[in-house]
């Protein structure tokens, strides 16, 4: 167990290191942030700024410098505000975590319910109808869902606020915008996983013992399909929730999405790099948690090989 965790931690550190490298390369190879930000500087000021941000040094030197500072959590000075990039990410993170956490919990609950119903009443009209609806909803971009929700619930009905993060009610629409497309993806995965489990031999044995379809699905199907799903979800989470960045912008939630978009707009490279590294760390931590959860759920993994 200790060894397993140690391996995963080392792999995770590699991923974080890689993310730091990629964000450095993407923002460095193409030129420097000083030229990208200011087009009409006099030569002396430009030279001073370039020297201040270290752009006059060769790429490998800057890279080593960057990695060294990174170990102290130092991403260099932000080019637009006085507070440190890491502190800004720290301030923004709670908003994003609230948004993403609510969306995942809600989407998972609904997806489990829908997929379970679909497995119990396999070819009923409701089950097939639900499946088709979710299939159509699957590809819809979160920001469009968000704008339609604003149109209906904020502009037309005036029930909910459409902007800002002042109280719980301002989270309703953004969470819904993230949840609706996510439910579709999750339901689909749940369903294929459940069908896979329900096709195995032990299910035939259970049925021969006289269990009803409902008992088989609820007691045995769900439990057996959980571990691969948890692993898969944790792996794909970064991709599934890329839309969060945009949804935050749409609803004016001051999370890391709004932060990174605003920073990229004003060429604040240090803050953008900090966001990429923090997201990678979050992803690695989450996958470690998922591995531990699977370990807790599935006794077969605990048995020594």
């Amino acid at each position, binding site marked *: 167990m200790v060894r397993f965790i140690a391996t995963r931690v080392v*792999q995770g550190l*590699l*991923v*974080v290191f*890689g*993310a730091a490298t*990629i*964000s450095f390369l*993407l*923002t*460095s190879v*193409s*030129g*420097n*942030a000083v030229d*990208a930000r200011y087009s009409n500087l006099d030569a002396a000021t430009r030279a001073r700024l370039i020297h201040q941000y270290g752009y006059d040094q060769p790429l490998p030197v800057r890279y080593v410098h960057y990695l060294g500072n990174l170990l102290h959590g130092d991403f260099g000075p932000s080019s637009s505000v006085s507070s440190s990039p890491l502190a800004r990410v720290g301030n923004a993170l709670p908003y994003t975590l609230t948004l993403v956490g609510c969306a995942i919990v809600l989407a998972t609950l609904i997806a489990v319910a829908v997929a379970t119903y679909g497995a119990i009443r396999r070819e009923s009209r409701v089950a097939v109808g639900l499946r088709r609806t979710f*299939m*159509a909803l*699957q*590809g*819809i*971009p979160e*920001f*469009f869902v968000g*704008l*339609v929700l*604003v*149109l209906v619930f904020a*502009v037309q009905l005036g029930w909910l606020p459409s902007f800002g993060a002042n109280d719980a009610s301002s989270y309703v629409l953004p969470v819904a915008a993230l949840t609706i497309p996510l439910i579709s993806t999750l339901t689909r*995965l749940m369903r*294929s996983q459940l069908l896979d489990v329900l096709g195995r031999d032990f299910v035939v044995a259970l049925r021969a013992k006289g269990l009803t379809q409902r008992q088989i699905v609820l007691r045995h199907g769900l439990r057996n399909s959980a571990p*691969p799903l948890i692993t*898969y979800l944790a*792996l*794909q989470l*970064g*991709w599934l*929730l*890329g*839309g969060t*960045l*945009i949804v935050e*912008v*749409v609803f004016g939630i001051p999370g890391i999405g709004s932060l*990174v*978009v605003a*920073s*990229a*707009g004003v*060429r*604040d*490279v240090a803050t*953008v*790099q900090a*966001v*990429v590294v923090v*997201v*990678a760390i979050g*992803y*690695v931590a989450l996958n470690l948690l998922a591995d531990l959860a699977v370990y807790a759920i599935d006794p077969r993994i605990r048995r020594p090989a």
Partner: protein
Amino acid sequence: MSAADATAAAAAAGRPATRRRRWHRVPGSLRLGLGIYAFALVLAFVGEVALEDPNRQDLASALEPPGSPGHLLGTDVLGHDVLSWVAHSVVTSLVIGVCVVAISAVLGSMIGVVAGYVGGALDAVLMRVVDLQLAVPPLLLFICATSTLGHSMLTLILLISVVSWVPYARVVRTQVQLESTRASVAAARLAGVGRLRLLTVHLLPSAAAMILVLASLQMGFVLLWEASLSFIGLGIQPPRASLGFLIAQGRSSLQQAWWVVVFPGTMLALLLLAANVTGDGLQERLGVDVEMVER
């Protein structure tokens, strides 16, 4: 009519009936997807040929509702014709989508086939890149890169391609590893087939179905990324039309004009649906499961 009669009638009718039957064997989802793509192409063509320049501003007729004369889908806050803008945006979307998918499919397949065949250090590096690619949402990487890069269409295509080749490499690598254990491959090697020919003629074709399915599914992601980036102002910039830009434009006048958001948004959703169902349909028709390989 009995089954025998039907077969006889089909035989008598010759090719058209066979063709029709073949069309019926195509999964419904694939037909839906191809239908939407066809609609998008027609719209794009009509837009290029028959509609006014999407950049023509006419402040006198700003925020006209749908159905007003000359503006079937209405106008935005600057008086741009929504229909024309959507039609021209479809061209932008499809060009970016096709270019990115083509570049990343070729690049990824080449890397995957070599990594799968050679193995060793190269393979290990590839798998770490795969880990890494999952850890950072692609959209975040694009935003990161746009902080120093420009916003031209070519930049965007290259940028998205640089990130999107990874799934192909992963899938092709797995397939090649499976395939190279086969006796036929060993026989080819014994017969003196060169390494390059072995890779391209004997190993790569076995992954063709996978590559096709991945490409059709990936089209959706690329369209979504382009629209998202353009929406936040870090992607395609006017005068080139893009759905994301129009949606962002409409967001500021959402109180008065729903149509500026809803029409381009629906077009985007339709394109994404087309990509998804085409991928699903191909998966079903070709009997491969990309998700299983990815796991």
